């Protein structure tokens, strides 16, 4: 049907000069653009639909992409999840980066703690200590977590994880069941401490001479200059002339997200203990697991680490590269 529409469109285009846009990539239920007579005038007298490009869009189509939640709860989908369900999910899908208690692994974000630290020399800005709204937590988990598989959680799972992160921050009891009605009613302690932008907030003056006492100038911090730029260039060239394993680039770009630090039980290249048992299964098995995903004794790996745009060959090369690093 699509093809015939296309042909019809091309025929009309050549015949009359009227542009008929292909409906192929669109939902076939969408209607053609409004005609000139249907134009709506907006509140300020704007010429709505002046160009008439694109397609009007249905509520159903909008709902598929409209994933944002406002502080007043507008946008929350029907559903529910408990702290208890959230704990199980969190351990399985979140703790590998955020730590079992929300303390953060490596440089991944800390989720809990830090209450009363915002005026400290090293403040800890967490959901409990800093974030203003619970709706932001639900919104963010739903749109982007878990890191390697964004938008893979169900609404119920998102409620459960939101409940559990609030629980980790001692903000709710362990018997809480979160849903579209009670989520926005839970207020976070730091909400009142966000203020409008008052800038410009400093006023320097344009002095041109005798602006300060030269004897009073003190250098209070300094970073040593980098190596001679000529040397720097040579190093860059040297790197590019070293033979590079074909799997290295994809390892660095994708696999290293977890494998560099051993996130989620991922074996670290170069760590013999991590690879000994795995090697016994043989390379084809390891490659197959990397492509298809595996739930192992020590951790979980989603198919292709969540980077589904990688080809099987690229994944295989990256696995080979990691094994090569082990031998080195």
């Amino acid at each position, binding site marked *: 049907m699509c093809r015939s529409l296309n042909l019809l469109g091309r025929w009309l285009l050549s015949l009359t000069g009227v542009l008929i846009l292909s409906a192929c990539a669109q939902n076939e239920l969408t209607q053609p653009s409004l005609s000139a007579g249907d134009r709506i005038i*907006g*509140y300020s007298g704007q010429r709505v639909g002046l160009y008439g490009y694109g397609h009007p869009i249905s509520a159903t189509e909008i709902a598929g992409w409209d994933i944002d939640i406002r502080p007043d709860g507008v946008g929350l989908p029907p559903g529910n999840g408990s702290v208890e369900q959230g704990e199980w999910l969190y351990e399985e899908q979140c703790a590998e980066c955020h730590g079992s208690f929300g303390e953060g692994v490596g440089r991944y974000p800390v989720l809990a703690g830090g209450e009363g630290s915002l005026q400290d020399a090293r403040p800890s800005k967490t959901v409990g200590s800093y974030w203003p*709204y619970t709706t*932001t937590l639900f919104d963010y988990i739903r749109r982007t977590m878990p890191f390697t598989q964004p938008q893979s959680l169900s609404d119920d799972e998102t409620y459960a994880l939101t409940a559990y992160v609030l629980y980790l921050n001692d903000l709710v009891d362990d018997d809480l069941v979160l849903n579209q009605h009670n989520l926005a009613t839970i207020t976070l302690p730091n909400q009142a401490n966000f203020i*409008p932008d008052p800038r410009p907030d400093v006023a320097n003056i*344009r002095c041109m001479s005798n602006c300060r006492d030269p004897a009073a100038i003190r250098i209070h911090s300094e970073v*040593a200059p980098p190596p001679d730029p000529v040397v720097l260039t040579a190093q860059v*060239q040297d790197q590019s002339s070293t033979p590079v394993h074909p799997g290295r680039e994809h390892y660095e770009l994708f696999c290293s997200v977890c494998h560099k630090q051993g996130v989620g039980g991922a074996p670290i290249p170069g760590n013999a203990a991590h690879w000994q048992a795995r090697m016994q299964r043989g390379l084809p098995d390891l490659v197959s697991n990397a492509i298809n995903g595996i739930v192992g004794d020590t951790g979980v790996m989603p198919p292709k680490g969540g980077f589904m745009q990688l080809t099987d060959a690229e994944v295989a090369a990256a696995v080979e590269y990691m094994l090569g690093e082990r031998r080195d």
Partner: protein
Amino acid sequence: MSQRELDNLVHSIAKSGDQLGTLERRRFLKSGLILAGAAASSAAAQSPDHLPPSTPPWSRSLGRGVVSHPYGSPSQHEHHVQRRTVDWLTADHISSISFTPLADLSGIVTPSGVVFERYHAGVPEISPDQHRLMIHGLVERPIILSMDDLVRFPCESMIRFLECPANGGMEWRGAQMDKLQFSHGMLACCEWTGVRLSTLLEEVGLKKDAAWILAEGADGSSMSRSIPMDKALDDALIVYAQNGEMLRPEQGYPLRLINPGWEGNTCVKWLRRLEVGDQPWYQREETSKYTDLMPDGRAREFTYVQECNSVVTSPCPEKPLSEPGKYQIQGLAWSGRGRIKAVDVSVDGGVSWRQARFTSEVLPKALTRFALEWSWDGSPALIQSRAIDETGYVQPTYGQLRQVRGSNSIYHKNAIHTWRLSPNGAVSNVQIS
């Protein structure tokens, strides 16, 4: 080393390489070539056949023909001009940042290939045929647009800077980065082409209470920010081209938002959705991040503007001085509030200042180049620049900023920057009081 000795060396390297395995052989040959290259350049230094009275070899031979590189790249001798990252800043390279090599650039337009990168979930590969922009919410006529639709709207091109609000944020507590690339490199300036957001909003028709717009990306982070309607109707641009070609994937191909003069994070890449509403959404990137924590524990929200700023790009740590003599102190100035009115340069740590001259066009919300001629006598110097924008705002000192904001606000650091020039010509990053 004579030519004969050089030939013998290369021959012996190649010969011994024959006995190696393929991979080792490649490695061996390449290391040999580096050796040979070093030897060749030392030979050239003794008898420079590229300098008069000799005629250089490239004047006595033919170069490559047309379309040998259908899409050209910089000269191989510019290989060092690269984006670089700082590994300790982020947990991985997927949600991370890289820096523009400012020291090696000229003029006010940043080449697309070295514009700093900031991703929250890596670079998505999106076919323009499959990309869509949805506009809905408090509008009369919610629509979905293809790229073919978007390029049919009236278009506009403007040269505007793009800066991450965290640019220089590592320096609030003291000098920390050893190069200009890292102290100021979350900065670029490009010619952006697209359709004004106001044109699209007129097309869909705003309803009475329309006051905010949520802009959302199609990447794996669905990065989202709330934009006030005033900005949307003022100069926001929905961009599909950059520096004369389609956007680079790193910059949001095929579609992004540009809010001129505002923090880069609001310029949502891979733009897929604009929702009109009557209040902001308080997304993660405007609550947990991109809010400015003050010493009293309160935090400023919706801190959009990138205030007036400047930095000396030569000399800098990557561009030391070779010997005493006349130099052009050069640099960049920019302001999110409009045009740069003047830039002053000091070589004595701010005791005295001289006004620099502009060496580029002075465009609103764009990088602006300045230069000041200076005779360096070989003494130590503390080199600074101070920009003033058309609102009369004078770029502040670290002391003035810290007095109001402390040192934990991460974002919007626009203090006067100091380079220390040593008698040997080396340049280091310092902070003075």
